[in-house]
């Protein structure tokens, strides 16, 4: 890498060794395999690529993946905000346990959440049975996908918004109150705008995670082509049919979307300043 000569002088040793090792390891584990995928895609003709990546069945999978991810991220933005608000502003019995359990979706393997959500929401399950009486089917429908994505996305919103609520200056709220604003006006006109960058950031992270999610969704989705088949599953299906080209083409479209979102997240985090900048 050329930048080595462009470093500022430092008396500390180890620059060449650590940067060299970092670059080598990064290249071997991350960049080289990604390049292998890209080279496979670039060896396809444009017609081959569009046939593989934009066929009706694949387009249907993009649609259900993006819509379910959006719905889940929105639900998480609302409820995650309320959870974060309660955790920072109120103290109630069991507060510590509630705070800890928010991390469950990070810690619980996705296959486990997948089978247990399916069991809960299938027609005979704890939630599925009463919902079925109301005529609502969750497991093996689009709703099931949303439920799984809400589960895995929740901590992203809570853990991004809570520090921002903690950082709110109490004087701003007091000033708004002194100037005659009602509590609701203070919240909607003063607090919410200040928290918007963090909320947007958490929403985008939850959305990005949902787009690529596989394990927790495939059990509950039913995986019917054109209806409840998510893009990640379609890639696996193509692989199992030894159609490596189609799998790579779909993956390339998905990666392009993910990287665009990564850039967006970095931008939001950069705008929020460097204080919580490490969570991108």
């Amino acid at each position, binding site marked *: 890498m050329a930048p080595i000569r*462009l470093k500022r002088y430092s008396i500390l040793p180890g620059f060449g060794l650590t940067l060299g090792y970092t670059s080598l390891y990064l290249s071997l584990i*991350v960049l080289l*395999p990604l390049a292998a*995928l890209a080279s496979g895609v670039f060896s396809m003709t444009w017609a081959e690529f569009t046939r593989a990546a934009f066929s009706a069945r694949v387009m249907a999978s993009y649609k259900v993946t993006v819509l379910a991810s959006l719905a889940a991220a929105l639900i998480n933005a609302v409820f995650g905000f309320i959870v974060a608000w309660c955790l920072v502003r109120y103290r109630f019995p069991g507060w510590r346990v509630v705070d800890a359990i928010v*991390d469950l979706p990070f810690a619980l393997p996705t296959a486990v959440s997948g089978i247990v959500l399916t*069991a809960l929401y299938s027609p005979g399950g704890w939630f599925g049975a009463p919902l079925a009486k109301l005529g609502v089917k969750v497991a093996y429908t689009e709703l099931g996908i949303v439920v799984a994505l809400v589960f895995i996305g929740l901590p992203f919103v809570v853990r991004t918004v809570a520090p921002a609520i903690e950082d709110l200056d109490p004087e701003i709220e007091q000033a708004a109150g002194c100037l005659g604003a009602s509590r609701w006006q203070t919240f909607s006109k003063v607090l919410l705008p200040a928290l918007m960058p963090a909320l947007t950031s958490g929403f985008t992270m939850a959305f990005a995670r949902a787009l690529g999610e596989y*394990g927790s969704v495939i059990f509950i989705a039913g995986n019917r082509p054109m209806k409840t088949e998510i893009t990640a599953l379609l890639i696996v299906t193509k692989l199992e049919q030894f159609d490596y080209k189609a799998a790579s083409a779909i993956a390339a479209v998905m990666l392009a979307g993910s990287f665009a979102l990564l850039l967006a997240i970095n931008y939001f985090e950069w705008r929020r300043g460097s204080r919580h900048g490490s969570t991108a």
Partner: protein
Amino acid sequence: MRGGDAAWVRYLLITIALGFLGVMLVAPLAAVFIEAFAKGAGAYWRNVTDPATLSALRLTLTAAAIAAPLNAVFGLAAAWAATRFDFKGRSLLITLIDLPFAVSPVIAGLIYVALLGSRTPLGGWLGGMGIEVIFATPGIVLATLFVTFPFVARELIPLMQEQGSDDEQAAVVLGADGWQTFRLVTLPRIRLALVYGLILANARAIGEFGAVSVVSGHIRGLTNTLPLHVEILYNEYNSVGAFAVASLLALFALATIGAKNALEWRLRRAREGGNGQ
């Protein structure tokens, strides 16, 4: 500051929050254990001690045990380079380290198939020497390395950035060599964050499903990890077996959360104490 909201607002919001978390998080966690014991403790024990389960456990722990130290060394090297020196391309490097988090697990598996599958030049060459990577243990280790890649680095980089390098410079001026400086000055101050990153990476390594699923080939007793074994049992309509194995993973997740919180508490105390210990 805590008294800002009216009592009814407070109760309403707490009720909504607890209700939501109860339905979304607590119910699934409880259901794992209830389903696992649906046919009694005997059936549970038989499923947990089944040879296929134990061999899956062995492979899961092997992959995690290889990934953890490699990612720790990488995280330390990356944090040292990125926070102790100022060079062109530094922020690009930090962005690239985070890249694996933006990649769907399924694609994380797919890129290794694209690089090392039996039809690729590299995979064919390795195969010629009798080395199987994809559909074998090395593939599972590689996929695990990829999905856990950023965890340690992203804990260390912000912390070491914040701490600055004054102490290390002082040590070097006083005649310490690089290794002594790292071991005696840097390491004691980042120990907790290092362990924290390792705990998160380890949880992901043990629970990873999509990436490992793509490279494993699902050979029972050979290339099966615990999460993959859950899927196999579930698809065989062995619900009690699937949930018994799932309960092991859930217990591990609870242990992870406990360790994470204990460390967060110590990290916060260390920061408030000011001494960084």
